[in-house]
Each structure stands twice: as C-alpha cells, then as structure tokens.
C-alpha cells in the first residue's frame, strides 16, 4: 500500500528560471542553461561552464544581499516560499516541520573570506565571519522568513541530500510528529565545487550529455527545490489540493568507493525494487524515470544497469530522462529539484527530456526522451533517483494522488517502537572507550593533551583514503558495533558535526589560491562534503543502511541521535549507528578566540578531537539476534521556538534514582529543568575532564546508556539546549 504522503506544494529556483511554471515551460521546450560561469573568476579551470542562477531576479533580492544572506539561503527562501504559497500553508496555524538538504551551504561567501584571509591572515573581520555560513544557516534563514517551524533538520548526503530531506520529512509526517513538512534542498555554485569536480576530471567540456555515447562528464548547476508534504487526512482537513503522492522511497549505501558508483548497479537496483514495493506497485505500474543521469561515464552506465536489473522487461517500455543536461548537477539540491520535476511530470502527463542526447549510447539499453518534452497523456507513477558521493543512494516513487481512503495515510504505528542501544563508544583524548569505561566518564581523569591516535585501530591499506575526521569516526563506530555485535552490513549511519570539515575546505582553497585550480587535490576534494566521513566510514566498515550527516551546531550529536532513532522506529533500518564527529579545528579555535576577545592560547575552552558512536537497534531485531541491550530509548523529543508543548509531553521520572546527565554545566539547562518534573533529580556532568566540544551532547547520551547498563541508575534524561531549540532524550533500563 502506498505510504500515502500527499505533495501539496512545489517550489523551484533553477538556472532555467525562478519559479515552477517558468522552469517547467523551459524544461519541456528543451532549453539549456549551461553557460560560461560569470559568478567568479574561472581562470585556470579546465571546464568553465555551469548552470548559474541570476540571484538578482529572486523576489526580494535587494534585502537579501543587503543583509548578508548567502546565495544558497536566498534561493532556498524563494523556492520554499513558492511551495508554501501553492499549498496555502501557514506555519503559525499548524505544526510544520522543516528539513533542508545541502552540501556547501554558504561556501561561495566563505570563499570570499578565505581569499581575504589568504592575503591577510590576521584580518579580524574576515575571521569573525568565517563560521557565519555553516550548513545550518539555510534552515535558520527559512525559519526566520517562513517559520515558525516546530522542528527543523539540516542534513547532508552529498548529491542525494535533497532526496533524503524528503524521506526524513515524510517520516515525521507518518509518525504524527508534524501536520505538514516543508522539505527540500538548496546549493549555490562556488569555486570549491567547480575546482573540485574539475580536479576529478568529472566535468564535460561541453554542456553535459547524459546517456550520450560522447558524454564526458557532468555540468555543475545551482538552485533550490522545495515541496510541501502532508498526510492525506491533514491535506483533506485543510482542503489543499494534492499535486501528486509520495508513494514510496528507499535509501541505502553502496559501501563501495568515495567518488565512483559501483558499476554493477546492484545496490541501486535493490533500492528501486524496495521503493516500488513500498509504494504497493510493480515495475508494470511505473511510466517514467527521472534519472540521476549526471553524464559521467560511470554514473550513466551504472544507473542503466540498475534500472535494467530492477525493472526487467519493463525497462524496455519505461521512458528515462535526466534534467541535468538543462540545469546541470545542482548537488545537494538535485534530489529535491528533480523530485519537484518528477511530481510535475506525474501531475501533467508530460515527460521532460534529456537535452544534448544526440547519439544515445548503444551500451545503455534505455528508452529515451531526447531534446524536447513529450506529452503522453498520463503518467501513473514515476521514479526519481539521487546518488551521492560515498554511495549514499535514494530512490523516490511519485504517483498520481490516490483516491482517499477512509483510514489510509493517517498517522501510522511505528514499525519498531522504542529502539534499544546495544553499543556505545567515545574516542578522543580519553582514549577509546566502550560502555564500561563510558559509565565512569563523569569522574574519569583525562589528560587533555593526550594524543588521539586512530591509525593503530585501523587497517592502513583499507584506510588510506580516510582523512583524519573519517578515521576518528571509523574507530568509534567500529568499537561500538563490535561491542553491540550487530551485523555491520545491515547498519546505517547518522553522524552529527557542527561545522563539517571547515579546515579541510580552507586548506583546499588556500592551495588553489597559491597554485591555481589545476593543482587542486582530487583526493582531498571528496573529503570536504559534510557527509564525507559518513561515506568513508560506511565504505571502511561495509555499512549498507541509510547514511547521512546532520548539523545543528553544538547539538549536532543530539540531532543525529534523534534522527537515527526516528529511522529505526520508521523501519528504515534494523540498526542505525548515531554519533558525533568533532575533529579539533584550528579555524573554530581561532574564530572563537577572536569572538571571545582572548588570545588563542587562553581563549574559549580548549577543544580536542572527539568521536562518539551509539548503536541503535529495533527492539525486535535486537531480540531476534539475542543482543544484550544497554538501554532503551524511552522518549526522544526535539523542538524549535516555543518549548512549552515539547516539555509538556516530557514524561515524569519513574523513580527517585532517575538522573539527569548533562553535556555541560549550563544555566539555561538548569532553568529549563526547573520547569519539568525532573527538577528534583540528581544531575551528573557527563565528562568534565573532556574539555569543550560540540560533540558533548552525544557523549552525554553514551554515558547515560552506559550508566544504566552499569546499574548506576534506571533512567536518565539528557537535555541539549540552545536559544530557540532543544532536544530531550529519556533512556531507561531495557
């Protein structure tokens, strides 16, 4: 049976046009927007073409530029506003969630600061602004302009980010956590991505030609795509008109290679089969595929293989096209933009074409739609594929709106309520700890200057591509999984990181400023996407479940944990490892020391490398394999803005021995706890010896589970709090 998620609003900003209607007209006509880049200096770049958005044409562009918005943020607001306006959705009237996917966030703006710092390393203002465009800035901009959203998630899985935002939002809807979600992705062009894809020799010197036998690579693009999703009951109650239905989806990892797709397409084929089955359909019901279709030799042949495997004989009937020959590859936005396009194809019964496809590659047995769109009258169901670096793949199934069923598509019972925790690990200057040692972290003496040495825990040959953040993550995840005994192949991975690899991006760009784009490092580039460590760890450990990164500043670990628990509860995987990855960052240290007005040596508390991993499993799955659970998730609450409803739903402590485990001694947490039934409970600081880290929230969760397992307490509340947002997680004895 279809998942029953209604698509009631669409919004687009693409290199073809601003707005859904204008983009659609040009898409069907076969127009192409891939041209010489004018946004920045492209001297020395091998390929100088991309699909560029004229941000001056965005509604309200003047205000945005004046107030320092990133282009990524401005495009996101324009597309999300269009989608909400089409759906007639007012976030102040119903509970609306927001999920945003992206890869580079405000990198274009950050590059300008890096260029200034390159010329003048002590430029104070540039340093102060260095962290002002993190990945989460897009969601913050949307919250400010279009909110209040009752919960917000920022995630990254490279080029499937936009599609995964849709999956996460649909999960919230079906779990009844929200009444509607605004979901999508936005990604602006920048020097870093153009230079990096050129270094990988992944760009076609001509506008890209997906599925053509002369294809020589992708063309980059930029843009934003957003959708409004509602449950059928909610859409009916609001009287909104569904455009299409999100009937099914599947996500998973190839665990193959950091940049190349697995040539056999087997993982993608399995995901297509699962997504189609989840929609209650068979390949005979599918009338169109909007392919990932990047135009690289490897992608297009692997994708054709996957379609052949999954669709069988029907692949000889089902037309396939890629929109990337017209708008380019919009990276973190692509999955969302192309889901919007796919919804329009279903709604209008017209196929969009593959531009530039003059000579179809005879090695790819696909039915094409070359050059211009084709009216076919009816498209019952369609697939939209999105594949990311690191092999994080997502398949969506969009159908015509299904006739309303009396009870269908309402809040569904979670497939696997109350996930359990079967392993934890903390890795940093404290050493590599399992559950037993984590229980003692609150009193453990730690030498902050102790070296964190991941290499002795890893196989050097297989780990050679992993950068330091990925190595730290691999060690923690490997240890937690070993303790858990959960089969790695089935596991997913959600890691939170506050700022991603900001130092890596800076050093990559400094090298480009010094030596020119030609000498940019091809091996370093894939390590700069926020989801790169997740990809590396999934490849190193062979994890094939859902995988992406989340970001929420110093609560990125909490966001990853809550997200992983939601994925398990929704049945997206039997086992998902959650965690935090906060490598020591020279840039974060410098910015904070400037912001706090101290010298770097005595500035904000010293930060150290930190990786945390927490294995979450469905209770039934854990029982089936006879696993010993450390703790069970009793409640996992998150909120934005008003914390009243969230705190009202927080359960009471079950015994006098129930305790709070806190990331840090923080007055605002104390004030918040005073307003809850937990005000009388004992409070434990999770790891006072660890110093300051954005990953302490995840440490608190690991310590909480470990303390329950050690019999020190039967129930723990962990609170992560920042102005305007928070998480409350209750763990209990299994």
């Amino acid at each position, binding site marked *: 049976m279809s998942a029953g998620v209604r698509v009631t609003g669409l919004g687009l900003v693409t290199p073809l046009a601003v707005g859904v209607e204008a983009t659609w007209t040009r898409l069907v006509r076969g127009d192409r927007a891939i041209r010489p880049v004018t946004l920045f200096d492209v001297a020395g770049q091998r390929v100088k073409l991309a699909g560029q958005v004229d941000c001056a044409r965005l509604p309200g562009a003047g205000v945005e530029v004046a107030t320092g918005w990133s282009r990524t943020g401005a495009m996101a607001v324009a597309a999300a506003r269009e989608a909400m306006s089409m759906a007639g959705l007012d976030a102040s009237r119903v509970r609306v969630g927001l999920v945003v996917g992206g890869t580079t966030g405000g990198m274009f703006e950050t590059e300008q600061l890096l260029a200034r710092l390159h010329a003048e390393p002590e430029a104070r203002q540039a340093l102060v602004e260095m962290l002002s465009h993190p990945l989460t800035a897009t969601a913050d901009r949307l919250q400010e302009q279009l909110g209040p959203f009752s919960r917000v998630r920022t995630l990254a899985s490279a080029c499937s980010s936009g599609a995964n935002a849709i999956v996460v939002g649909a999960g919230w809807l079906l779990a009844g956590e929200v009444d509607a979600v605004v979901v999508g992705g936005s990604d602006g062009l920048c020097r870093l991505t153009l230079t990096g894809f050129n*270094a*990988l*020799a992944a760009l076609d010197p001509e506008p890209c030609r997906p599925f053509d036998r002369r294809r020589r690579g992708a063309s980059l693009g930029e843009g934003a795509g957003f959708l409004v999703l509602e449950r059928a009951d909610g859409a009916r109650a609001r009287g909104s008109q569904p455009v299409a239905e999100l009937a099914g989806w599947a996500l998973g990892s190839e665990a193959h*290679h*950091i*940049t*190349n797709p697995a040539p056999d397409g087997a993982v993608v084929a399995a995901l297509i089969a699962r997504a189609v089955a989840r929609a209650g359909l068979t390949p005979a019901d599918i009338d169109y595929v909007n392919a990932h279709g990047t135009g690289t030799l490897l992608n297009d042949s692997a994708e054709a293989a996957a379609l052949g495997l999954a669709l069988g004989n029907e692949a000889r009937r089902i037309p396939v096209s890629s929109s990337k020959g017209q708008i380019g590859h919009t990276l973190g936005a692509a999955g969302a933009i192309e889901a919007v396009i796919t919804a329009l194809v279903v709604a209008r019964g017209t196929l969009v074409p593959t531009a530039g496809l003059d000579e179809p590659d005879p090695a790819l047995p696909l039915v094409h739609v070359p050059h211009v769109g084709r009216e076919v009258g009816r498209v019952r169901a369609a697939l939209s594929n999105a594949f990311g670096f690191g092999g994080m793949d997502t398949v969506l199934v969009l159908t015509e709106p299904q006739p309303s069923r009396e009870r269908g598509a309402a809040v569904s019972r979670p497939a696997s309520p109350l996930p359990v925790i079967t392993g934890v690990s903390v890795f940093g200057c404290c050493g590599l700890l399992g559950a037993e040692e984590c229980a003692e972290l609150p009193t453990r003496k730690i030498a902050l200057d102790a070296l964190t040495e991941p*290499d002795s825990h890893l196989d*050097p*040959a297989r780990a*050679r*591509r992993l950068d330091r953040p990925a190595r730290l993550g691999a060690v923690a995840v490997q240890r937690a999984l070993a303790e858990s005994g959960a089969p790695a192949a089935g596991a997913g991975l959600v890691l939170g990181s506050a700022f991603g690899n900001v130092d890596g991006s800076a050093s990559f760009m400094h090298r480009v400023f010094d*030596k020119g784009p*030609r*000498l*940019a*490092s*091809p*091996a370093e580039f*894939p390590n700069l996407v926020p989801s790169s460590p997740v990809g590396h760890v999934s490849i190193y450990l062979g994890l094939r479940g859902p995988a992406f990164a989340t970001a929420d500043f110093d609560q990125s670990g909490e966001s990853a944990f809550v997200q992983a628990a939601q994925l398990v509860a929704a049945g997206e995987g039997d086992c998902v490892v959650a965690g935090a990855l906060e490598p020591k960052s020279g840039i974060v240290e410098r910015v904070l020391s400037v912001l706090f007005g101290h010298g770097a040596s005595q500035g904000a508390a010293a930060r150290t490398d930190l990786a945390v991993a927490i294995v979450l499993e469905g209770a039934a799955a854990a029982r089936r394999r006879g696993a010993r659970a450390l703790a069970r998730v009793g409640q996992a609450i998150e909120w934005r803005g008003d914390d009243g409803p969230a705190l009202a739903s927080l359960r009471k402590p079950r015994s006098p021995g129930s305790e709070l485990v806190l990331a840090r001694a923080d007055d605002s947490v104390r004030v918040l706890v005073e307003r809850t039934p937990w005000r009388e409970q004992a409070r434990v600081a999770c790891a006072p010896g660890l110093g300051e880290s954005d990953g302490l929230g995840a440490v608190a969760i690991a310590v909480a589970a470990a303390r329950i397992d050690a019999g020190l307490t039967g129930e723990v509340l962990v609170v992560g709090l920042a102005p305007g947002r928070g998480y409350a997680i209750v763990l209990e004895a299994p």
Partner: protein
Amino acid sequence: MHAAQLRSQVKRLIVAELNLKGRDPETIEDDAPLFGEGLRLDSLDALQLAVAVEEQLGVRLPDGDEARSVFRSVRAIADYVERARRA
C-alpha cells in the same frame, strides 16, 4: 637525473601521495602494473598522481587515453617525465 633515481622519486611520490603507509617505496617494481592488479590503484589515485607529478616533477601528464599507457607502471611514468623534460 639518472633514470633509476627518477624512478625512485616516482615511487616515493606514489607512497606519499596515495598514503600507502608502511610500504617501502623500493619494493614497488619498476614494471609492475599500478592499476587493476599490482598496487590496485584506481582512477582517483591516477588523478592525484598526475597532480603530484605536475607539481613536483614539473611535467604535465596527458589526459584521456594517452594517460592510460603513461600510468601503466613506474617505468612508464618516469620515461614519460624524462621525454617531456628533454622535449
């Protein structure tokens, strides 16, 4: 530069750039295949190696089909660098 010295330099560069920790550069044979079998390097390694050769040995390696024969072995890379320097 002596041809053997240049080959040693290419080997050291391979070990350093591709992060083949613990591998003694001198154990890489001059004619051993680098890709597919032998060291089992892949296309991403080839790109990284090309950048390193250009930066450190001052020779721009070819792209595309011609690259395939240059990247065949340490000897093939060193010979190409030698020829390019003489030209």
